[in-house]
């Protein structure tokens, strides 16, 4: 039972491994029904935080509750009230699809008279009605991912933790997957998700960015783009993107390719624009357009990491 409108709340949560502080005094408040995106580079503390919230790892310090249960003392209760899907889709490859669903029904203690209905629900949701007796290992990534999601929510948990759920899944499957996430959130499920796809981060209601164990930014996607971005982003359209990127980058301006365009991150527009124009001109690169744009979440992410 969720006892308040807050689904996840932690105060000064800390985890140390020996001398290494993996998670350093973090605070989080996640509302019921919210889609909360947890971003950060590899090794920043995302998975460690998630494991503590799921009752799989005991914190070294701090306090918190998940679904109203104490993360220090009630980890068994927490496990019954959450779903957890890891990037490895923990399915058994040598079991059939139906066998996997049955297996997870057993683990999560799904009520006997609900079992059949839940199995059909998962098969429908994953588009696997005709393939229930096929071995799981023959499924393409997108189907496996939906099956893994179905298995993680067989017991209809009010809070769902997703650890890079769309890693290595093609764009169409990713879109379908996010439609499912939205439906669940509309129905009241709280979603806590980590991802490296910045377009997906934009689909979240709220985001936190963790780096070296600390939360360095928090807010809605729009707040992050406005509040935390102290530098400006220029969008540059040229005829030779790769060459232009190299020249600008080698002259000390953070630059990256976005599709067929460049994004340059600068402190001072008045100085940077003429400098870039000159660099391109000297290299005989045709500049079609250079203008200031609203930064993308990827610009924000990279800037925050590099300046902290």
């Amino acid at each position, binding site marked *: 039972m969720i006892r308040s409108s807050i689904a996840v709340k932690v105060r000064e949560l800390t985890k140390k491994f020996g001398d290494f502080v993996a998670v350093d005094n973090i605070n989080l408040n996640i509302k019921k029904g919210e889609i909360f995106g947890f971003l*950060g*580079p*590899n*090794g920043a503390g995302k998975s460690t935080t998630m494991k503590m919230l799921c009752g799989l790892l005991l914190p070294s310090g701090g306090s918190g509750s998940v679904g109203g249960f104490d993360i220090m003392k009630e980890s068994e209760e927490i496990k019954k009230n959450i779903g957890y899907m890891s*990037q490895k889709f923990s399915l058994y490859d040598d079991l059939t699809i139906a066998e996997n669903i049955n297996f997870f029904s057993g683990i999560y203690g799904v009520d006997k008279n609900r079992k059949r209905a839940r199995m059909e629900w998962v098969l429908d949701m994953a588009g696997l009605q005709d393939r229930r007796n096929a071995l799981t290992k023959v499924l*393409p*990534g*997108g189907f496996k991912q939906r099956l893994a999601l179905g298995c993680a929510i067989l017991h209809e948990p009010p809070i769902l933790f997703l650890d*890079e759920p769309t*890693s*290595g*899944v*093609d*764009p*169409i*499957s990713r*879109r379908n997957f996010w439609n499912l996430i*939205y439906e669940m959130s509309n129905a009241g499920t709280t979603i806590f998700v980590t991802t*490296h*796809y*910045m*377009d997906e981060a*934009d*689909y979240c209601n709220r985001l936190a960015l963790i780096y070296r164990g600390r939360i360095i930014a928090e807010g809605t*996607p*729009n707040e992050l783009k406005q509040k935390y971005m102290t530098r400006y982003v220029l969008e540059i359209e040229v005829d030779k*993107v*790769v060459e232009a*990127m*190299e020249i600008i*980058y080698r002259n000390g301006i953070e630059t*990256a*390719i*976005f*599709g*067929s365009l460049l994004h340059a991150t600068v402190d001072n527009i008045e100085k940077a624009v003429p400098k870039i124009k000159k660099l391109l001109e000297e290299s005989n690169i045709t500049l079609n357009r250079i203008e200031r744009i609203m930064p*993308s*979440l*990827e610009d924000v*992410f*990279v800037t925050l*990491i*590099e300046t902290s």
Partner: protein
Amino acid sequence: MDESAIKTVDLRKVFGDTVAVDDLNLEIGRGELFGLVGPDGAGKTTTMRLLAAVMEPTSGNAWVAGLSIINEGERIKEHIGYMSQRFGLYEDLTIMENIIFYADLHEVAKEKRPPKIERLLGFSNLTPFKDRLAGRLSGGMKQKLGLACALIHTPEILFLDEPTNGVDPVSRRDFWRILYDLLKEGTTIIVSTSYLDEAERCTRIGLMHKGSIIMKDSPSEIKKSLGMPMMEIWPDDARNAIAVIKKVEGVKSVSMYGNKLHVALAKRELVETIIAELRQAGIEIKGQREILPSIEDIFISKVEGQ
């Protein structure tokens, strides 16, 4: 020697009753950065394995660096580097020990090793960590070590199977900078990816679906192939706007990119109708402009149209 780095003729691979690669005809020139793009199960990994001569085709043939994959597979391995999705790093060996292991495997002469290793560690920014165990590296660093190992014998052709899966945006930028450096030195690179923004960075893309390449061209040519105008619309409530826009006649597709929408239209003038409909539904527009479709737009329209 042949001008092309790779040439396949009716290359086919069948597993049971699944045709993984379906009579593929593909030619990749030297010095290209060729992106293999497609949905899961399209045959990208199988194609790479066939070309890296680690798997035999059911029929057809392919030449890699001028050598046939059927009877010259062992010699091909001297000319290529191959980084698979589950690249074999030894987690209980250090970075340096992993690289030496691959140098042994490829029989790189002892006296040639020190400058090569120094260079590989340098461009992958791994020099300060060379004595760290591979098992203790972050995802992005593992990826760069994998690449360094695949490059130890200075291959002229490099196969990378989804190299940036699960790698954060900062590390992805680093990784691509390394690829551009290799490209400048003349290395041919074949990369498969499910990040379509990365596909746009390739010199040429092959869009793979059900074992065939259904389209191959430069990113800019591929983007022109949609054949209708594409508008970017930025409403204050993108999710609810989709349903409204889909009902407007002449709208071919709507997809969400972050908080913006890409809308393919039969004709440009329909934008006015869309804006009016959105206002009617209480949704405000923060901006709109005509754009070139992204590779993802093309990907979705081609694959869903099949």
